[in-house]
Structure formats: C-alpha cells, structure tokens
C-alpha cells in the first residue's frame, strides 16, 4: 500500500514536475495487470511487442525456415513500399485526415520517372526530380483543397485517387517499361533496389530509406515546432488556430510532404519490382491504412507515434509471410489476417483501458 502514498495528491506544496514517480500499483497486482500498467505508460510500445511476439511465435512454429536472416530480411523488403507509404499516410492521419490517393500518387510518380527517361530521353536524375515534383504537386492539390477550401480529406483524396489513377493509365498508355531496359539504360531508377548483405541478411537501399525516413519523421514530429503543430491540428483544429498555429500552412505542408514521400515510394517501387508498371500499387491505400491503424495511430487525429506505422507494416508482413510459409491457403491467410487485425487492436485497447 505504500505505493499509494506516492500518488500526486499528497505532494502539494512544491511543484515536483520532473520527479519520476514509481508507477502506481492498483489493488490487483497480478502479472497481467502489472504488464498492462507497464505498457500503458508506453502505448507506442504495444505494436512493437505484438510484432516481437508474432516473430517469436512464427519462429517457434516454423523454425529455421522463418528464423533465417534471409526470411527475416525478406519481410523487410516486402514491407518497404507499404512502410514508406504508411509514413505518408501517418502524417495525414495525424492531422485527422485520410489519404486514399497514396498508391495512385506513388504509381504516377514512378511512371513519370520512367516515361520522362524513356519517352523523352530526359537525363535520369532530372526525370527522377520531375517524378518527385509530380508527387509533391499531387499532394499540394489535395492540401490546397483541404486547407483552403476546407473540404473533407476523405472525399478530396477519393477524388484525387480516381483522377491520378486515370491520368496514370492515360499517360502511360498502360505500358510497362521492362526491367532489362531500365537496368541497362537507367540503372539509377533502380537505385533503391541495390542490395548489400551483412552476414546472411540481405538489405536493400529501399529498406534503409524506409527506416531512415520513419526515424527522421519521428524526430521531426516530436522535437520540432512543426511536429507539435501537426499534432495540435489533428487534435483540435479550431483550438490550434485560436492558439496561434497557422493551421492552413501546416495542413498544406503535411499533404505536400506526404505526396513527396509517395513519390519516393514510387522510386523505391521501381527498385523493388525492377520495372515501371502502371498497374502496381492498387492496394496501397488499404494496406497503408491497415499498417497505420495496427500501429496504434488514432484515425481521429492527434494521437499516436509514427514508429507505430512501421511496426504495423511489419506485423502485417510477418503474418503474411509466416502464414504463407505455414502453407495456409490464400483465402485462409486473408481470413486469419482479418482475425489478427482485430486481435492486435483488441490487445492494444485492453492495454489502453488500464484502470479506467
């Protein structure tokens, strides 16, 4: 019962802001409830733990086939595109938005990079820059509609999705640029596909990029004024405006940055699949949203850490590969992933509901 004496009401006269008090222990001190409390104080750890647990379980069941450096790094390679897109999606979701056009922007950007190089013979670096600008411009259009005209993000990006995708098909003429040609004539387009190995583990620049991107964004969101403003806008945009945040500018910057990240994902996509394919990425929106939500970022804005998006993407990747290796039939895999999505969030919720 001594723990209780540490509760704050007892410490009145002096402000004791920085003293880290021992965690409050409730009447029931079983292992579970202690774990719950531990996790509660660190909600962004939840998806990480789910991730580690699922790796552990599949490792136990599948043994070497799963626990090999090859298989584990394969997961990283398989989630890199979703991971990058999920970073973009997280930014938007943190501002209480949602972006249905991420996949389309990604594909259009990669098509621009490819077609500018091969159709018009523009030097590769310039084509890549054009592709990145294209992604950012798409983001800017959504951003302007959301921030200036105050249209709901869901509908803006729903419209943009159709517009960008149709543009992509019309512009590319549905033609794939083949990997062999890219490899010989414009290897820079495949830059993110470059592999290097450490031990048996094979990494690609795309994987490294994904990790660096998310760590960088986590820093920016936590330690810069811009990051705080993103959270404030997602939390309560009117309050943010009244307390002096240029909410319009913050929103625009978020959508543009997200478009740019999608364009980078497009570049990474060329590295991953080798070719420039206008039909890729059709499921990216739903996959990225899944990753973000499993990662514990609230769809109602302003809550959650972007690292969660990475963990969320990895959780889905681990389950997918693990179930495939277990030989589950594809439909059973989807069914189980459906169940697991719900379970992952139920665990998360259980932890958040500690003693309330």
């Amino acid at each position: 019962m001594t723990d209780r004496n540490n509760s704050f009401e007892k410490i009145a006269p002096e402000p004791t802001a920085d003293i880290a008090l021992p965690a409050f222990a409730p009447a029931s001190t079983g292992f579970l409830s202690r774990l719950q409390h531990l996790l509660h104080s660190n909600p962004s750890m939840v998806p990480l733990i789910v991730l580690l647990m699922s790796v552990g379980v599949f490792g136990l069941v599948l043994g070497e086939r799963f626990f090999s450096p090859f298989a584990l790094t394969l997961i990283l390679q398989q989630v890199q595109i979703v991971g990058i897109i999920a970073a973009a999606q997280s930014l938007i979701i943190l501002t209480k938005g949602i972006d249905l056009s991420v996949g389309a922007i990604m594909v259009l950007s990669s098509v621009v990079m490819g077609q500018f190089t091969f159709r018009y013979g523009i030097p590769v670096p310039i084509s890549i820059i054009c592709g990145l600008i294209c992604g950012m411009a798409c983001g800017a259009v959504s951003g302007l509609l959301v921030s200036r005209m105050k249209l709901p993000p869901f509908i803006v990006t729903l419209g943009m999705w159709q517009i960008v995708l149709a543009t992509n098909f019309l512009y590319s003429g549905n033609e794939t640029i083949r990997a062999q040609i890219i490899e010989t004539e414009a290897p820079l387009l495949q830059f993110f596909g470059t592999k290097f190995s450490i031990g048996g583990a094979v990494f690609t620049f795309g994987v490294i990029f994904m990790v660096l991107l998310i760590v960088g964004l986590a820093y920016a969101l936590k330690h810069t004024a811009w990051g705080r403003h993103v959270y404030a806008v997602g939390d309560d945009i009117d309050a943010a405006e009244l307390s002096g945040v240029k909410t319009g500018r913050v929103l625009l910057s978020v959508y543009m940055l997200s478009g740019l990240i999608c364009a980078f994902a497009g570049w990474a996509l060329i590295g991953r699949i080798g070719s420039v394919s206008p039909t890729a990425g059709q499921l990216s929106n739903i996959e990225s949203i899944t990753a973000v939500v499993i990662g514990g970022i609230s769809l109602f804005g302003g809550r959650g850490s972007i690292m969660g998006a990475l963990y969320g993407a990895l959780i889905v990747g681990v389950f997918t590969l693990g179930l495939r290796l277990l030989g589950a039939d594809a439909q059973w895999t989807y069914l189980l992933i459906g169940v697991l999505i719900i379970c992952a969030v139920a665990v998360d919720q259980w932890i958040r509901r500690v003693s309330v």
Partner: protein
Amino acid sequence: NDHTASACLITKTDTNPFFVKMREGAEAKAQELGMQLRSYAGRIDGDHETQVQAIETCIADGADGILLTASDTSSIVSAVEQARDAGLLVIALDTPLDPANAADATFATDNFRAGELIGAWAAARLGNDARNARIGLLNINVSQPSVGVLRNQGFLTGFGIDVGNPNRWGDETDSRIVGHDVSDGNEEGGRRAMENLLAQDPMINVVYTINEPAAAGAYQALRAINRENDVLIVSVDGSCSGVADIQDGVIGATAQQYPLSMASLGMEAIKRWAEDGVKPDPTPGKDFFDTGVSLVTDDAASGVESISVREGLNRCWG
C-alpha cells in the same frame, strides 16, 4: 534423392473459377505424383506485388519449381529471374511472360487466337450484316491487362476490324464499334457496362465479353429490354457454366481454354526437373507450349472450326 519434389502455384486471383480449376488440376496431379504443392494468389486482378511476394516466399521455402499466371507479364520478370537464379524452374501458365523466354517454359492458351476465333465466328454468323454490325465490347478493367488486350484485339482482328495499336484497346476508329466499357469480369459489371452501351446505342447486335460471367451480366441487361434474342454474345473461357450458358442460348459461342491440363502439364514438368533436371520444350513453331483453344458453339459457322456444346461440356476446363 528422397526429397519430395515441391511446387508453387501462383495465380492472379483465387476467386476466378478459372484459377480455381487450375489449382484443382495442380492439386490432383500433385497427389498423383506424390509432390508437395503450395498455392498463392493475388487479391485482385492486377495485384502484382502479392505475386512478387509469393515468388520470394517460394524461394525462401525451397521449392523446386513455380507455376505462374502473371498479373503483369513484364514486371514480374525480375522476380522470375531471381527465382531461376535460385535454381527454381519457372513455368508460365495461361499467359506468356514478356519476353516469353523469361520463363523456363510456358503452357498457355493463345489468348489472341481465342479472341480471333470468336471474332471470326461472329463475322461468319452475321454474314453480310457484318459490314454494318453494331459492336459493343466489354473488357475487364481500365488498367488493360495483357490478357484482356489480347482477347479484345484478337476478336476485332477475327471480325475483320483494324485494331490500331495492338497493345491497347480503345484506339480503334472503325465506326461499327459502339463503344468499350469495363466489366471487372463479373456479372454485376457486365450488366452495368452493357446497360451503358445500350444507352449509347440500343441497336447493338454483337457483344464481345472478356469472360462468361460478364457475358451472363450482359445478357441480363439485354433481357431487360427484350433484345436477348437478337444480339450475338461471344465470350472466352469455356467454363462448364459458360458452356451451359451456350446451351441455354445466353452466349452464342465461347473460346474454350484448358486450365486443368496446363496445371497438370506444369506439375509433371516440375517433377521431371526436380528428378532429372530436364526442362520442357515449347510447341514447335511457337515460343510457348500451346495447350490449345477450341471454339464451342452449337451454331457452327462455315470456315470456323468449332466443337459442339456436348463436347464442350465433356471437355470443360479439363
């Protein structure tokens, strides 16, 4: 070598009955030959990434060979190369890769040929009226996957229409074409697309459909305006229910493919590869092993070879 040969089957989706049949064939063969089989599929038509992931999984899994129906025939090539470098035999089923020699072998329907057959049949049926036919085309979706393009352009070629760019549908200028629409290859889309085309020109009298479910949907739309008896619907696939639809007069003719034999041929090839290291050979004169396509109709037209519905039912997707 006590190692049982293991194979992967990767299809575009596992919801289309065509691929379901293909998987059944592969499974039956695997049992017969004592092989291990893992099946994978994309979620939707055109889901390329899942197929790449499936190939990677097969490599990780140490399979001997892969049977693949590619969603994106040229993009998949890098992943296929990776698998072949890892010592797997890769066989393209149903659809040749681009380039075709990217796979070790191809057991496929000639989709262009399938289209050509139904096109020629439709033209022959109409006789002189073919010159002022009103044609509606129900394709799969706007991303124009190669199978859809090949069938569509094959149909137009067979009908005697200049196709423009053979890698794209929709760029034809022939005035007989009322329009293209997309059906997603199912009944619902088929009906909606047909209705849209009928609103443009209610006198359409020839309808090409990407597959039989789309044809069944189109038929419902025609029936709703009581024109089901004066429109020729042609389709591709030759599924048992598709052939039954011919019997019932829903579809005029369909080009039948043989997914089961593709799959079992493929399984045998992998077995041979795993045991003796021998790769299969293509059909002489083509860069792939043609598993054949037959026109099924009870209303045979002169100059176009066809089999009867009864035979079609016997062979449906065998």
